[in-house]
């Protein structure tokens, strides 16, 4: 009887530890997917240079087009629908939220500049036109009744740099 009780306690502890491990592994995977998708989406948005301005010698990112391409790229990379909710088969577990989307170009900044965003904890030297974005999704929760985890939040900056910097 004594042995059975001890073993039961060990099994409960094991199941709890196992679920916690699975949750952390899932967090790791979700965070990597989110970060890569954010990188690709910001990269694609940064390619939307206004051709008319470019012919005048200025690098200006078309903000409307950039935002549309950013969202489209997120949808393609994470398998999301129009409202950024995962479609069946998506590797993401819950909906994705775009918290911040900002364009720095020759219309609103001079380079190099020290970009600081205290809200999302970003500080970085930016050397050319850039797209800055922050997205988040819910933390996977297998043992959510005991721990409430903060959402997974990833920032990214995609910028143009002159060769040699």
């Amino acid at each position, binding site marked *: 009887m004594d*042995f059975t009780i001890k*073993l039961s306690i060990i099994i409960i502890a094991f199941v709890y530890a*196992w679920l916690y*491990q*699975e949750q952390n*592994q899932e967090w790791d*995977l979700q965070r*990597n997917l989110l970060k890569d998708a954010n990188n690709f989406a910001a990269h694609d948005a940064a*390619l939307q240079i206004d051709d008319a301005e470019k012919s005048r010698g200025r690098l200006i990112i078309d903000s409307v087009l950039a935002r549309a391409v950013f969202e489209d790229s997120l949808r393609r*990379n994470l398998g999301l629908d129009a409202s950024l909710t995962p479609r069946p088969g998506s590797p993401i577990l819950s909906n994705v939220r775009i918290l911040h989307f900002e364009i720095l170009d020759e219309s609103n900044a001079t380079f190099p500049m020290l970009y600081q965003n205290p809200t999302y904890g970003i500080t970085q030297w930016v050397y050319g036109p850039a797209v800055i974005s922050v997205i988040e999704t819910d933390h996977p929760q297998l043992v959510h009744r005991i721990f409430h985890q903060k959402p997974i939040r990833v920032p990214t900056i995609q910028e143009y740099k002159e060769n040699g910097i």
Partner: protein
Amino acid sequence: MRAVKETILRAIYMPILLYMILQPILSYLDHLYDNAVKSNTAYLTQKAATEGRVTPQLIQEVTNNLKAIGFSEDEIHIESDPVLRYRGERIDVAIRVERNRTLFPFNFTSKSQPNYYYAHNSIMSELLN
């Protein structure tokens, strides 16, 4: 009699003990393989953006990366259109690697385990025409 009973009990619970030892290891290994496939797909996609397509050299580099962690060459399938894409056109890259590793020490159910690790990424080409 008591000693015999305890020995039998321990023998019955031995598979559970074995499960508790092996399961976290197998689960973590599987996670690492999955992560490696996804990270390599992201790397290949970034590189493809500047080249305009997934070049044979890039395929070889990623294949070598995956071989270095234990996959064999015939298990790795890299899928991408070889046509050159110019700035603003989309490049899709997918890697599928056969998943012939077990996830559980004992499979108590009749459900089959996933057959492959998979990752897909899409990016716009940077290549100037």
